[in-house]
């Protein structure tokens, strides 16, 4: 299979270029990551992140034939040749397929991504009904891969000001938690022309999320909560 990979090493290269590799697909190879490992065996200078190889750690997000996804759960059989691999769009490239995720994580950190509840905790667990717990489904599973935010035009233009779909999904994860006590502060933190309201419901984020999460829905829910508290 032919794979064309974006190459750029600031230590050596003046500018980025695409390099083609040809690797044999063997019966044991299922996913794109299997082929990337083979490419690396031929050319150890190809740099990419990977760890779990099962779609749970969020390391190997990249732009695959024009669409963001995780190499480890992208089936070889579903790929059109030549496979074109580029770094996630919109973030500074450190090298090859490795991008600098600082802005992405800064936005995640900006939403206070932790439970806030200063009431003295009970001896046992805080009780939560199965229905209340179900509100967190579709939210807590986010693996912070950045596929969504780096496919969002609003994030490309304002990565420093717009929280982006991943950050907002996680903001709603805490707003939706019956145990959290910081609803007002959380909403205040987002009530801003950029932080939340740069989302124009373009839905790219939903389309690419490898965990089938729906940031747009979460963003809609936050907007609803804002409206509700003003009336």
């Amino acid at each position, binding site marked *: 299979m032919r794979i064309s990979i974006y190459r750029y090493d600031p230590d050596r290269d003046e500018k980025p270029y695409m390099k083609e590799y040809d690797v044999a697909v063997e019966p044991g190879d*299922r996913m794109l990551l299997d082929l990337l490992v083979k490419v*690396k065996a031929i050319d150890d200078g190809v740099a990419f992140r990977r760890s779990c190889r099962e779609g749970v750690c969020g390391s190997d997000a990249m732009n695959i034939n024009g669409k963001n996804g995780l190499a480890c759960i992208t089936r070889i059989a579903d790929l059109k040749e030549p496979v074109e691999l580029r770094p996630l769009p919109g973030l500074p490239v450190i090298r090859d397929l490795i991008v600098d*995720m600082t802005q992405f994580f800064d936005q995640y950190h900006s939403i206070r991504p932790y439970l806030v509840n200063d009431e003295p905790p009970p001896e046992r667990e805080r009780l939560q009904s*199965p229905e209340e717990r179900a509100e967190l489904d579709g939210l*807590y*599973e986010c693996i912070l891969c950045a596929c969504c935010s780096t496919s969002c035009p609003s994030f490309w233009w304002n990565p420093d000001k717009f929280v982006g779909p991943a950050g907002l999904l996680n903001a709603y994860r805490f707003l939706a938690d019956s145990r959290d006590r910081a609803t007002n502060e959380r909403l205040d933190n987002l009530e801003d022309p950029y932080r939340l309201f740069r989302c124009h419901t373009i839905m790219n984020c939903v389309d690419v999320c490898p965990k089938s999460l729906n940031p747009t829905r979460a963003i809609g829910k936050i907007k609803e909560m804002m409206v509700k508290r003003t009336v």
Partner: protein
Amino acid sequence: MALPIRTFDAVVVGAGGAGLRAALQLAEAGLRVAVLSKVFPTRSHTVAAQGGIGAALGNMGEDSWLWHMYDTVKGSDWLGDQDAIEYVCREAPRVVIELEHFGMPFDRNDDGTVYQRPFGGHMQNMGAGPAVQRSCCAADRTGHALLHTLYQRNVRANTQFFVEWMALDLVRDASGQVLGVTALEMETGEVYVLHARATLFATGGAGRIFASTTNAFINTGDGLGMAARAGIPLEDMEFWQFHPTGVAGAGVLITEGVRGEGGMLLNSTGERFMERYAPNAKDLASRDVVSRAMATEIKEGRGCGPNRDYVLLKLDHLGPEVIEKRLPGIREIAKKFANVDPVRDPIPVVPTVHYMMGGIPTNYRGEVVAPRGGDPNAVVPGFYAAGECGCASVHGANRLGTNSLTDLVVIGKAAGDSVIRFLAENPGRKDLPADAAEPTLARLARLDGQKNGESVHAVAEELRRTMQAHCGVFRFPDLLAEGVRRVRELVQRVARTEVKDKSRVFNTARVEALELDNLIEVARATMVSAEARKESRGAHDRADCHDRPGFPNGRDDANWLKHTLWYHDGDRLDYKPVNLKPLTAESIAPKARTY
């Protein structure tokens, strides 16, 4: 050449469940701490844990930490240290409740309490049974929920992370005290000495010494390699857990929670064969027992598929609702990696390398210990280990499912507290030895200067194949002896690997070469320790030591109820006694192990 030096109160190497729990203790105590990780914290392999965290909360019916302790001792085939086991089982409810308070999204019962599911080897009434529901879970994404919650709590505590920094070598002075590590900042290629008053390892497992494993690419046993090269022994390295249900051909894990929820294993005749091997616990017997049963079925020609090389995990009878609610991640994995939808079809599974019971020897407080002056458990000052890289030993010869996450959080927290105590009692800072950076500089210079060397990939693949073929579910004396010889040959080849990529920036080829230096230590320790242990116990099953009168399941307590200690220098082996004395509970005396 000298390296730039940075100073801290403590350095934590690893940001998985164990590292993050320890870091939280230290950050909340206001210490100057650096937490290093090869990957962004939430990408650590704790994220992959599925089935749950064990704690006798008793939410689903009666349970007690004493029962949990009994099951753990029995599961360990009596090789576990009973003081550590008592400590972990007794503290488990407390740390799980604490995780809930931190915001961990556990599944819930109708009364609002945390939902718990059955798991292999967890029983009521001091092992008498029936099965108990002890595994606290968040669907089949418990590790994800736990790791993200702990990361979030560390964000709140302002923990200082050094993300994509790889620790390379341990720094010890002439007295043996640990004074920090050398480390590589991957993005820039800069190497530093991190001078710390206390150093805590939480580097996770090393499943990547085998060809077929549930472990991530980054699980290369770095902490063990660093400790071994610095003269610290590795404990009980012959004990590797083969998880019964890895997806055939892919290695990806299918949680035991599937069997906890009612799933069962079938051979080619459609027989639920575990009924023969473990009449009481059946599919929920201990992992070593189930893996051996599966391997036996396959060996005797009752495997499934064109090559009769796997068995089937059936769960369609649970119904789509239970599968969607309790096992959604499993359905995803089965569809992606096995091409089957478990709502209709069974999943092809094989025993797959999963967990390292051995590791850096510690006590239950997370302090690293090594023999000195006649004391087999003398504390190594300034050095701590927790999580899968440590060996307290809670899991002995075989770990029960859900007990690793418990171990991470309990011993992780205890190790953090031990560091705090040590720093308070030893306010000064010892100077770095003049040659602190030497071993690291030598390794890097060798690698950069290597000409006509072999590729890292080729040598690592050969290592994995060797371990898989010579140190599997069933172990044979001749294969083990040959394995020792081959691994020693590989030591020579590892010392001559060459990396073509000489860039400074995010050089992942260099990282892989440096990881191989650790893999080879773990592989040597495993092979040499396994060859030497002439009995069957827990996960270590020798074909020449099977059931005989006086030796139930091939176990030989008279000669082998002891921990192995392997030393890097000369492959030297030493042994130390198992601690059969709990802290407060009654000792659980060895007896034959049946399920």
